[in-house]
């Protein structure tokens, strides 16, 4: 007998996501991912000064803050053919790396860990054993029995107070939690440490961009002046601060984050669900030269179809036949039609809600059921994000990718195919943080070397004045955001933003069905997963969270409807 599980809202994500899953004999037969809220940012930026657009679209998301701003800046610079100074490129990469590390760590500990870690079970732990485990997996100094005893006492105090706060009503005691109490305690300790650390790494953005969340950028480079002999420029003290933050981040990633993911993962090796499409997309990023030098990308560009690692295909965001957004199951029209696909330069945002009026218990998933459009690459569904990037880097034979993946898999005693799972996605994210932290160190060294060579330029003002712009132009800005491939497409006419479209990672991953009824990445990843207790569908959260959903990103259009059920229904 089929039953439908609804989770709405899915928490520990950004935004408002609804999942409906069709169950048959305790296994998910089919799944539907729906974005139930929209805002109006693409419409709101129309007719604005293109130099201002970064600030508006930055507010698409406050979690992956800065990624949308940088994508917007790059789109305008592409349209106007502006090359930014070397220092500005390096500073932007440092800021992007900072948000990547922040995001990955916060995702694991604060958004995802409770899918694997039973907080209340940590009360049963022997702190001495936790200490032994901690010291066996890492050199992180906070590992004494007394330290873990203190953490355990904190948890006990919260439980004894009767006010569980953020831990209230979790799935504690669920039989799919497999960690021994000692490892649960270790994870809780690091939940708290990560909460403290995350406020540090963002200071890289504060130093260069003035604040975080939502630091400042400028078309043409960076407004932050470098001047090692001025009390108002970026000088040795500021550079030392950034350098120190990077060193601390490398230690945290390598001594806490990665060992924790490996340790926790080792208890879930036989939980192999959540793989999904096996189609992967990355625009690539972190160029050692200019953003347009794709060959110099440390994070490689490419597409893999059907898990075929022998063929990494090229991606061109400007090719009208490659990236298209379809609306056949989304609440939009194109040219008055309810279906079809458009390249983002030709994209439209005409809202046309046809879902249930008022409250609803289930969506009509045979028809339109989401505010998220369905982006497709050559009409194929794609997964994007850390797993996609690690697999593409591996397939592209990038040595550091191969070393990172092979070493982790051999420690865990797992085959390559194990990566294609919820746990693999979580592992890929941690390994990627290891690579990014190293690049961040390299970029900082390059910045200092560049300054030492006498280059303190951060801004190219040659195209700042709109009178220097062509009457019409169009551009694309891409970036690898924490959650995956992000592209912003802009058309500029007479100094104004004529049209603007953002196709973001979660739009790819959380997309509904398309014109060919092809399912999206979340939907594919959920299929075939057994659910032990439909009233407490921990497994669904585990898989969906492994993608690190960002719904405000996915649906950044007009907030015409935000239909949330806020309940798990079984019907």
């Amino acid at each position: 007998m089929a039953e439908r599980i609804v989770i709405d809202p899915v928490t520990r994500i950004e935004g408002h996501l609804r999942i409906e899953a069709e169950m048959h004999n305790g296994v998910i037969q089919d799944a539907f991912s729906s974005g139930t809220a929209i805002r109006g940012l693409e419409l709101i930026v129309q007719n604005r000064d293109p130099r201002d657009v970064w600030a508006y679209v930055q507010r698409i998301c406050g979690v992956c803050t800065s990624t949308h701003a940088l994508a917007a800046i790059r789109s305008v610079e592409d349209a106007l053919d502006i090359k930014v100074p070397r220092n500005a490129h390096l500073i932007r990469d440092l800021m992007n790396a900072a948000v990547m590390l922040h995001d990955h760590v916060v995702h694991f500990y604060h958004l995802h860990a409770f899918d694997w870690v039973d907080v209340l079970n940590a009360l049963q732990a022997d702190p001495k054993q936790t200490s032994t485990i901690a010291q066996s997996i890492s050199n992180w100094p906070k590992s004494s029995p007394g330290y873990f005893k203190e953490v355990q006492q904190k948890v006990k105090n919260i439980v004894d107070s009767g006010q569980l706060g953020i831990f209230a009503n979790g799935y504690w005691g669920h039989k799919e939690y497999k960690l021994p109490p000692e490892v649960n305690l270790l994870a809780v300790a690091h939940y708290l440490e990560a909460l403290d650390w995350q406020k540090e790494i963002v200071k890289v953005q504060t130093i260069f961009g003035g604040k975080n969340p939502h630091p400042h950028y400028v078309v043409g480079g960076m407004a932050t002046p470098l001047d090692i002999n001025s009390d108002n420029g970026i000088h040795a003290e500021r550079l030392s601060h950034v350098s120190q933050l990077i060193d601390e981040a490398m230690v945290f990633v390598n001594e806490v984050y990665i060992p924790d993911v490996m340790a926790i993962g080792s208890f879930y090796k036989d939980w192999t669900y959540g793989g999904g499409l096996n189609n992967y997309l990355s625009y690539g990023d972190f160029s050692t030269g200019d953003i347009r030098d794709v060959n110099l990308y440390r994070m490689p560009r490419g597409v893999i179809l059907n898990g075929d690692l022998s063929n990494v295909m090229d991606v061109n965001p400007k090719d009208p036949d490659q990236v298209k957004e379809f609306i056949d199951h989304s609440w939009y029209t194109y040219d008055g039609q309810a279906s079809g696909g458009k390249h983002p330069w030709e994209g439209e945002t005409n809202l046309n809600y046809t879902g249930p009026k008022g409250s609803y218990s289930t969506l009509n998933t045979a028809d339109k059921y989401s505010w998220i459009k369905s982006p497709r690459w050559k009409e194929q569904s794609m997964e994007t994000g850390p797993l996609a990037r690690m697999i593409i880097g591996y397939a592209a034979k990038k040595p550091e990718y191969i070393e990172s993946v092979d070493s982790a898999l051999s420690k865990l005693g797992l085959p390559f195919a194990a990566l294609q799972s919820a746990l693999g996605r979580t592992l890929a994210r941690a390994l990627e943080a290891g690579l990014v932290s190293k690049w961040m160190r390299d970029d900082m060294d390059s910045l200092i070397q560049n300054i030492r060579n006498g280059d303190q330029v951060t801004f190219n003002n040659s195209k700042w004045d709109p009178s220097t712009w062509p009457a019409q132009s169009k551009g694309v800005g891409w970036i690898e955001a924490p959650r995956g491939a992000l592209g912003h497409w802009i058309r500029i006419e007479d100094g104004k933003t004529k049209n603007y479209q953002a196709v973001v990672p979660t739009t790819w991953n959380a997309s509904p069905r398309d014109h060919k009824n092809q399912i999206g990445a979340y939907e594919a990843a959920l299929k075939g997963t057994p659910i032990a207790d439909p009233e407490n569908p921990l497994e669904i959260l585990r898989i969906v969270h492994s993608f690190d959903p960002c719904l405000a990103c996915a649906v950044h259009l007009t907030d015409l409807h935000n239909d949330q059920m806020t309940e798990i229904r079984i019907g």
Partner: protein
Amino acid sequence: MEKDMQTIYQSVLSRGFSRRDFLKMCAVLTASIGLDYSQNSEVVKAMEVSKRVPVIWLQLQDCTGCSESFIRSSHPKIESVLFNMISLEYTEALSAASGHQIEEARKHVIENYPGEYILAVEGSIPMHDEYLMIGGVSAKQTLLETAKHAKAILAYGSCSSWGGIPAAYPNPTGAKPITDIIKDKPIVRVPGCPPIAEVMTGVIAHLITFGTVPELDHHGRPKAFYRHRIHDKCNRRAFFDSGLFVESFDDEGAKQGYCLYKVGCKGPTTYNSCAEMRWNGGVSYPIQSGNPCIGCSESNFWDNGPFYTRMAKIPGTQTTINPEVVGAGVIGATVAGIAVHAAVTAVMNKKSDKSNKKDKVDTSDKGESREEDK
């Protein structure tokens, strides 16, 4: 409904701190919420008898940037906020529970702590019910239902305070600030896109410590944090007064730290604590880092651009405060900053000295009996 709950004082003791540490924490808090030390005894008393205050945090038309800013708080640290000061029972960003379980958590607070919990709201609300639904009912109804029994309401960020970016032209959804929906409750506006972390936690500290809404200006903003324009406290102010301006980013004036007014800075019309408290633990703020302020804590700032065009004139070059008081305020803030740092350091040192010593605490202690200093 008396539960087995600890007061903040008890909670502090049970974490291995002494009474002396506790008094230092209170001193830090007193300073950080802008009070003078004569008011310290009130803080001590409040913290001794207060339970962790339940908080429900609703996210409406938002980007989660306010939640993200909140968890960046340096003083108090977010761990201390979450586990010593408040009990955040409903947050889509951090709650372990999803679906109906999180909804039950919200209802539990409303039923068990009427008139005692704080409602924090992030994001604007659209004009028509059907545009924003939560739990099968409109978000507006959920907001009203949750607001009804709240002790106080915090409008965190510019969206809930003013309408924010969803309300920017052409405001396709008819987005409104929550002050347009809730009329019968004290609402503290804490604007900013997002607000500064320590402003967000500072307002909560005030509410908890004094059990009252902080003194507000005529827009409903706490005077402690929104009394002055950024321009009034700007580190580049001397250059404005001298007529020395950045003409283009990265020019010689930019390197010298000249005033950003001519490249569009909205500091002269923006009320916020950026210049004083700065961001992310006092590291910098946009103007210090060479970027013109975009005025993100002001009503309708999205439609007051373009951002890089200077204003025709500077409205209100005069504040309501006389220069002597302004000067005293600046000195006071500096002293408080040093005191905060010193106290935190002292407490942290103390804590690491004896992290394992105290595991037990007499939970019958209601604050009357005093554990004296060692």
